[in-house]
C-alpha cells in the first residue's frame, strides 16, 4: 500500500509517496540521500541510526514512515547550518569522541537531544542517555568528555 507522507527534514518540506512498510532510515538514505543515518543492528539496540523526530531521539531503522507523518526530522546533516558546527559536533572533534565514526551521527544527535532538554545534565542523566547507544571503538571516555565539554560550552554561552 502506498501512502502520502509529509515531513520536514532539516528544515525542508517533503511530500513523499512511500510504501506503508518503508522505514524512516531507508527513506532518508535512499530517497533523500541523507546517508549520515547509518544502520547497524537493525533492532533499536545500537543507536547508529538515531535521528531526531520533533526533537526526540528515534531509531530510524525501526520506525515506519507513516509514524512520522507531519513531523519535523533532524538528521546529522541538518546540524551544521551554514557550515558552522554545533557545540556538540565541535566537542566531539575536540575530544576525539569517535574512531571509525559509524556510531557518530547517532551519538551526536542523541547528545544534541539531551542537551536541548537539559543543558547541564548530571552524571547519572548523561549515563542513562548515553547508555542507549553503542560505540564499539572508543570505550566511551572520549564521548563522555565531549558531552561535558559541550554542556560546559552551553553553560558559558547561557551565562554570557
Amino acid at each position, binding site marked *: 500500500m502506498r501512502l502520502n507522507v509529509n515531513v520536514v527534514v532539516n528544515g525542508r518540506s517533503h511530500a513523499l509517496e512511500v510504501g506503508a512498510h518503508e522505514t524512516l532510515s531507508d527513506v532518508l*538514505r535512499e530517497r533523500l540521500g*541523507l*546517508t*549520515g*543515518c*547509518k*544502520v*547497524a*543492528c*537493525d*533492532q533499536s*539496540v*545500537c543507536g*547508529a541510526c538515531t535521528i531526531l523526530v520533533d526533537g526526540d531521539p528515534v531509531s530510524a531503522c525501526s520506525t515506519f514512515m507513516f509514524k512520522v507523518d507531519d513531523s519535523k526530522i533532524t*538528521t*546529522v*546533516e541538518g*546540524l*551544521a547550518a551554514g557550515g558552522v*558546527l554545533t557545540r556538540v*559536533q565541535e566537542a*566531539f*572533534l*575536540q*575530544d*576525539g569522541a*569517535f*574512531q*571509525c*565514526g*559509524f*556510531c*557518530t*551521527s547517532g551519538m*551526536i544527535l542523541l547528545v544534541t537531544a539531551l542537551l536541548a532538554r537539559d543543558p547541564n545534565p548530571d552524571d547519572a542523566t*548523561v*549515563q*542513562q542517555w*548515553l*547508555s*542507549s*547507544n*553503542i560505540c*564499539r*571503538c*572508543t*570505550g*566511551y*571516555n*572520549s*564521548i*563522555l*568528555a565531549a558531552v561535558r565539554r559541550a554542556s560546559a560550552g552551553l553553560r558559558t554561552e547561557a551565562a554570557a
Partner: protein
Amino acid sequence: MTHSHTQESDTYFRAFRKKATGQSVYTFDVVLPFMLHGKLLRSPHAHARIKSIDASKALAMDGVSCVVTGADLAELADPYYGVGLRDQPVIAIDRVRYVGDVVAAVCAVDENTAYRALQQIVVDYEPLLSVMTPSAALMDDAPVLFDTPTRGVSPVIGAGSAYKIDPAPNVLYEYTFGYGDVDRALDSAHALFTDTFEIGRINHFHLEPYVNVARWTGSQVEFWSCNQDPFVLRADVARIFGLPVTDVRIRTPLIGGGFGGKSYCKMEPLVALMSRKAGAPVRLALSMDESMLTLVKHPASLTLTTGVDKQGLLLGRRADITLDGGAYSDASTLVAIKTGFRIGGPYRWQAIDSRARIVRTNTIPSGSFRGFGGTQASWASERQIDMIARRLGHDPVAFRKRNLLKAGEPFAPNDRGIDLDLAAGFDRLIASMPARTKGRGQGVAIGIKDAGGTGNHGQALVRVNQSGQVCVSTATVDIGQGAPSAMCRIATEVLGLPRNTAVYASVDTEHNPPDNGTHVSCATMITGLAVEAAARDALQQVLAFAASQLGCTADDITLEGWLVRHGGALHPLEPMIRKYFGGIGWEFIGRGAFKEPYAPATPMGAENVSWMPCWSGAEVEVDEETGQVRVLSLVVGSDAGRALDMGTCIGQVEGAAAQAFAQAMFEEMRYRGDQPDNATPLAYRVPRVADMPQDFRAFVMESRLGVGPGGLKGIGEAGMLGIAAAIANAIEDATGASLTKTPFTPERVLAALDARQAPDIAASK
C-alpha cells in the same frame, strides 16, 4: 582521561569533520548505477550434506536476476579461501558445516525481492552428526568435518617452531614452539603448578556490517569493499578467479569498525561471482545477525604447567593449548602460532614447550580478532602467574618484577630484544591504582605480544606539488585508528611542512602501492617507515630541483616551509617551479618502502618488529550472595614508543580495553545445542556506558625504542591483553575465589565462591 585534539594540530580535521557531519562515505554508502542487491540463504543445520538445491521458483520471480550455488564454483580456478590453509568454499559445495553456512545467493533488483526469493529456494539436506566443542571433535568416534587433506601451506615459521597440517581427524593444524630443556627445568623446580584456563567465544560486533559492491567490466572486476586488507584480498580474488592481479581492483572507502573481523578474504569472491552471473554490479550488505555468523574469536582451553624455584624465579612452562577453530580455517593457523609463541608472557624462562592445536567444530569459523591469540595466551599466563604467587605466599607484584624481561633482552632465542621498559610501565600502573579500600580486591596483569607481523612490508608514495601540498598514498585503510592522520604527520615532519598541507589518498589498489594489510598493529610502524622514506625521497627531489634552479648543489640549501634557504636568501618555491614547468605545475613523487627481512633462525621466521605491553590493573567488589562483580577501577597502559598523537593512542588503548573488559565480564557468543543461542544484536551483549567502570583510565608510555619513525610502534591491539587476568586476579584478591573461565558470569563467580568454601567444610568434618 582524554587528550584534546587541537584544531591546528590535526591535519585530518577535514576527515574527522566529515565524520561529525555525516559526510563520510563508507562502503555501506556506495551506490552504483544499475546495481543489484544480493542476499544469502544460510544453513539451519550444523552439519549436513546438500542433496539438492531447487531454485527454479526463485528464478521465476519478477526482479530476480540469478541464483548462485555451489554448482557455479566449477568455473573458478580455485574455489577455496583461507589464510595459508584454504578449506572454505566460496559458497557451500556439497556440505554445510555450521548453522549459518552459505548455501545459495540471490541477486535481485532490491533486497526485499531478494529476501522473498530466498524463501522460495528449496534445499534438501541430509543431516549429519555434528561436533560442537573441541572435546567432542577429538573423540575417537567423532564425525569428521573434512574427508580430504587440507589445501594450502602453513604460514612461515622459523627455528624453534614446528607445525603439522591435519595431524589428526578434526585437527586442522598443530603448532609447537619451544626452547631449552623443559623436562629438566620442571624436574628441578621447587614447586610445580598445573592449571587449566578457558576463554569464551566473542564476536567483533563492528557496527558497519560486512559490505561489498562488485562490478565486472569485461574480464576485470572491481570492488568497493569494507575489507581491511585490500592487497591481500586482491591476491585472493585473482587466485580464485584465475585472473592477473591487475584485473582485480579494490577500493576501500572508510571502514565502520573491524577489529580483525574484516581482515582477510571472506565473502568477497562470492560477491564477484554473483555480479558476474548477474551481469550487473551487485551489492551485498550483510545484516548484523549475519556478521555475527561470519567470524568469531577463537574460544580456547589452555593447560599450563609451570615450575618455579625456591627464590620465586620462573624456570619452565609447558603449555597445551586447544583453540576452537570452528568450521573453517580462516586465519586459524596464525592464531595457533601466535598463541603458542606468546604463552610465556613478559618473563625470563629457562625453557618453554608449547603446543597449540586448532580443532574443527561445527561452529562459526574463528579468525583474527584484535590481539590475535595474544588475549588467549595473556589470560591464561597472567592468571596462572598470579595464582602461583598467591599459592607460594609471594606478593604478585614483586613476583612479577623478579621475573620481568629487561629492555634489550630477547623474548625468545634469536628474536629482537624487548623494546621498552616493562618494569617502568608496571611501576606506573601500580602508582595509578586507587588506594586500598576494605572489602575490595585489586589485581594486576602484564600482557604482552609481538606486533607488526612476520616479515611484513609496506610501500608508500609521497607526492608534493608546486604549492607545497602533500598527498600521501599507501594501502593502509582508515578503520578508525587514525592511521591516515599518522601517515600525513610522518610525511610533513620529514618535509618540514605544516601538517594541514597533507591529505591522505583514498585507497585503491590500482593507484596506491601495496602493503600486507591494515592489521597486527603494523600500519603506523611499517607503512609509516615507508612513508618516512618516501617523504625523504620527495624532499631530495625538491632540493635537487631548487639547487638546479639556483645554480648550487643540494647540500648548499635547506627547505623552510615552502621556501628554500640559500645562504642568507629565502627563495619561494612555487614561482620557481611554475617558471620551469609552466602553469599546471609539477609533482615531486617520492617513493619509499620498508621490508622486515625473513630470518629463519628466529622462531617466527622473521624478527618481531616490536613488542606491545598491556599493563592492566583492576579494583573490584564482589557481591558474595549473587556472584556479581563490580569493577570499580580499570587502569590500562601500553607503550607507543612515540605517541604521534597522544589522544589517538589513548583512544586505541581504551577502546581495546573496553572490548577485553566485556569479554571478561559478560560478553560471549553462546550455543545451545548446535544452534547459536544469542547471535542477534539484542541478545548479544556488548558494553555500554553504564557497564564501564566509573574509574576507567589509560596511559601511554613513550620508550622511543620502537623501529618506526621517531621510535614509534603500533598500539592498536595492546589494550586487549591483560584485562581479563587483572579482573580475575582482583576477584581472587577480594574473595579468594578463583576464576579460570571467561566471562565471569555471576553464576560462575558464585560457583567459585562456593568452591573456595568447600575445603573448609571438608576440614571441619
